[in-house]
């Protein structure tokens, strides 16, 4: 029987209001104590966490591991290692695989792939509409029974509001969470950059923020109509934050997240025609970034996701509009969160909450906290350890990141998932 003792770390567990030096005792996959040593506890592994921080393992609300169908970009195996090295213990997979996660068989396949990669806590998000085409409902209940944690339409817009209404009603009937990136197909106009000074200068097809805010406003109305539980993912602009704030104040059952890179980069940071900055939604303005940061600090936006999208080299090799969008972002998640803390935007507790406690609440899972009896998902990190994003340190198969070559502060040293040590830096 494996027992792990994590000794003398700064335990930050926002869900339980804990921030003190403590030992964490893990036995049979569960947290058994964060105070005194339980009787008869004989650890098989002891982790010295002095001068380090112990916190709940991170829960990523939007990830792509590219299997099935696109293993040239990444595999469960490659990305499970990357996630573990980033302190992530739970991942929600977007349904835009090939085939799409719209049948129980694909959901089963994903579970198998996760087991094989020895990274069991992967929750597929089922397609909201069949093949993500926005025309027919997927078999949501069967997909839920096959282990899908929510339904969503990935990057695809649902063009027809009647179909979106029915999908939300059907999801609500089965108490299914809808995870949705608001995105109006027509206003998006196949753009690849924010409709602003950068796109204008470089003649790039552009996406106005209204493609997001108008779709969001419509969805909020439909939440009221359908009673659906809705989580808005990867928000990118100021007025989205304001709308979520107003909707919550009004009493709607909604939540929201932001992709970590949106909290750091804007159109002004983009290097012309550098495809590593090609991301959807696009990097917007400084004002948008500031509002997203404030939204996070105030709790309006309660979670941070990686929106990890690993790509093969060819996918990013071309003229900017023709390249594929997305950033490989698991491994920069923690250091970029810590950068926000260093910049005084949020507290460390808030940052950890946004990566653990809050996403667990969104998903209605008993996780994201080191509560006695909970599955032992733990991240131990060194706040001061510096490292560089380079081939030597990088684990993901996708090297598509605008942060390549940059130095970061803060690095995970140990990751425990369901009581099993799945990563330690020394290895």
């Amino acid at each position, binding site marked *: 029987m494996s027992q792990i003792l994590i000794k003398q770390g700064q335990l930050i567990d926002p869900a339980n209001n804990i921030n003190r030096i403590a030992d964490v005792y893990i036995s049979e996959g569960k947290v058994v104590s964060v105070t005194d040593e339980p009787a008869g506890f004989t650890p098989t592994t002891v982790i010295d966490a002095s001068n380090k921080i112990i916190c709940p393992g991170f829960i990523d609300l939007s990830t792509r591991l590219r299997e099935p169908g696109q293993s040239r970009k990444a595999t469960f195996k490659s990305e499970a290692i990357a996630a573990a090295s980033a302190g992530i213990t739970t991942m929600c997979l977007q349904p835009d695989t090939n085939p799409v996660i719209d049948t129980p068989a694909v959901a089963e396949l994903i579970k198998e792939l996760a087991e094989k990669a020895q990274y069991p806590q992967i929750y597929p998000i089922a397609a909201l509409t069949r093949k993500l085409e926005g025309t027919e409902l997927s078999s949501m209940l069967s997909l839920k029974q096959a282990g899908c944690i929510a339904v969503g339409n990935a990057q695809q817009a649902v063009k027809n509001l009647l179909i979106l209404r029915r999908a939300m009603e059907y999801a609500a009937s089965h108490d299914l969470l809808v995870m949705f990136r608001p995105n109006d197909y027509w206003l998006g106009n196949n753009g690849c950059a924010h409709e602003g000074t950068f*796109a*204008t200068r470089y003649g790039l097809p552009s996406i106005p923020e209204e493609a997001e805010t108008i779709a969001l406003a419509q969805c909020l109305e439909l939440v009221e109509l359908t009673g659906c539980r809705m989580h808005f993912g990867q928000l990118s602009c100021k007025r989205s934050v304001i709308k979520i704030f107003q909707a919550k104040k009004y009493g709607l059952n909604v939540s929201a997240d932001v992709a970590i890179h949106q909290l750091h980069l804007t159109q002004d940071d983009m290097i012309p025609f550098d495809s590593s900055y090609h991301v959807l939604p696009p990097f917007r303005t400084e004002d948008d970034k500031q509002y997203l940061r404030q939204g996070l600090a105030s709790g309006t936006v309660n979670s941070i996701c990686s929106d990890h999208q690993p790509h093969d080299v060819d996918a990013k090799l*071309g003229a900017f509009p023709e390249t594929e969008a997305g950033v490989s972002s698991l491994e920069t998640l923690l250091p970029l969160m810590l950068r926000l803390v260093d910049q005084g935007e949020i507290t460390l507790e808030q940052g950890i909450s946004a990566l653990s406690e809050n996403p667990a609440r969104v998903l209605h899972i008993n996780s994201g906290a080191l509560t006695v009896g909970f599955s032992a998902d733990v991240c131990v990190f060194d706040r001061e350890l510096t490292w560089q994003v380079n081939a030597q340190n990088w684990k993901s198969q996708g090297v598509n990141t605008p942060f390549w070559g940059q130095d970061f502060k803060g690095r995970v040293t140990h990751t425990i998932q369901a009581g099993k040590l799945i990563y330690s830096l020394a290895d």
Partner: protein
Amino acid sequence: MTENIQLNSKGKLKHFLSIEGLNKTLLTEILDIAESFIGMNDQQIKKVPLLRGKTIVNLFFENSTRTRTTFELAAKRLSADVLSMSIATSSTSKGESLLDTIRNLEAMFVDMFVVRHGISGAAHFIAQHTSPHISVINAGDGQHAHPTQAMLDMFTIRQFKQDFSNLRVAIIGDILHSRVARSQIQALNILGAAEVRVLAPKTLLPSHVESLGVNVSHDLTSGLKDIDVIIMLRLQKERMTSALLPSESEYFKCFGLTEAKLKIAKPDAIVMHPGPINRGVEIDSKVADGPQSVILKQVSNGIAIRMAIMAMAMQKQGAAE
């Protein structure tokens, strides 16, 4: 540009991709060198041996007659060997990537690519990934830039107006989709024009267009006041089907340049158009063929400008060897 890949370590032209990032001295040098080639047009033997033994490939992923022909003539007058390839987009969609096309041609010992492509950034991409000894000239990429067209326009303006510093220039039409307009605006601002004004309905203007360094007007009548140079842009037919404009006739009524409207501008204003012209859509025939039109002059100047740019880009190459 954070890093200007157009220039070599000595600040000399290596690629010509965009006006952005080039300074007034360099733009003026291009105009001056083009000036020296202009005289050649009247000579019996229209050739200089500057690029003898060099191989230039015109790589046109988009249809073009005028630009391709003037590039071809320019290369021939510099005594280079020229190969013109029209690569319909359908053949690249057969699976061969842009990079593979370039690699294949590189393997045939090419010295320069002249590239036209329908996607913004294509010329930059090729310049970044091609062998270091190869120069890339952008002959138009998507909606981004068409810097040789802009330079031949600057050359034409200088021919008629000498100094840029007192000039007010109006660019009229589809700014949103125009790579020509973007490059012209940059060139005019670098060369120190007093004002660049864009005249178009809102549907044909990019967002934040003022950030390019222009004044904006949606009314041709008031917008043409005090203007020294009028640049008309071509209006593509598909702008009507994509709901950007209601009809050609309504567009002509608002933004078409007629003799009456031309009178609002300064009496010695010149009228330019990058071609091909849509008579009766953006410009009246009487204006296009009238005394103030310098449209055909632009075409002739296109050869000299392209000779100058090709010679300059290759010159750095010779020095590096």
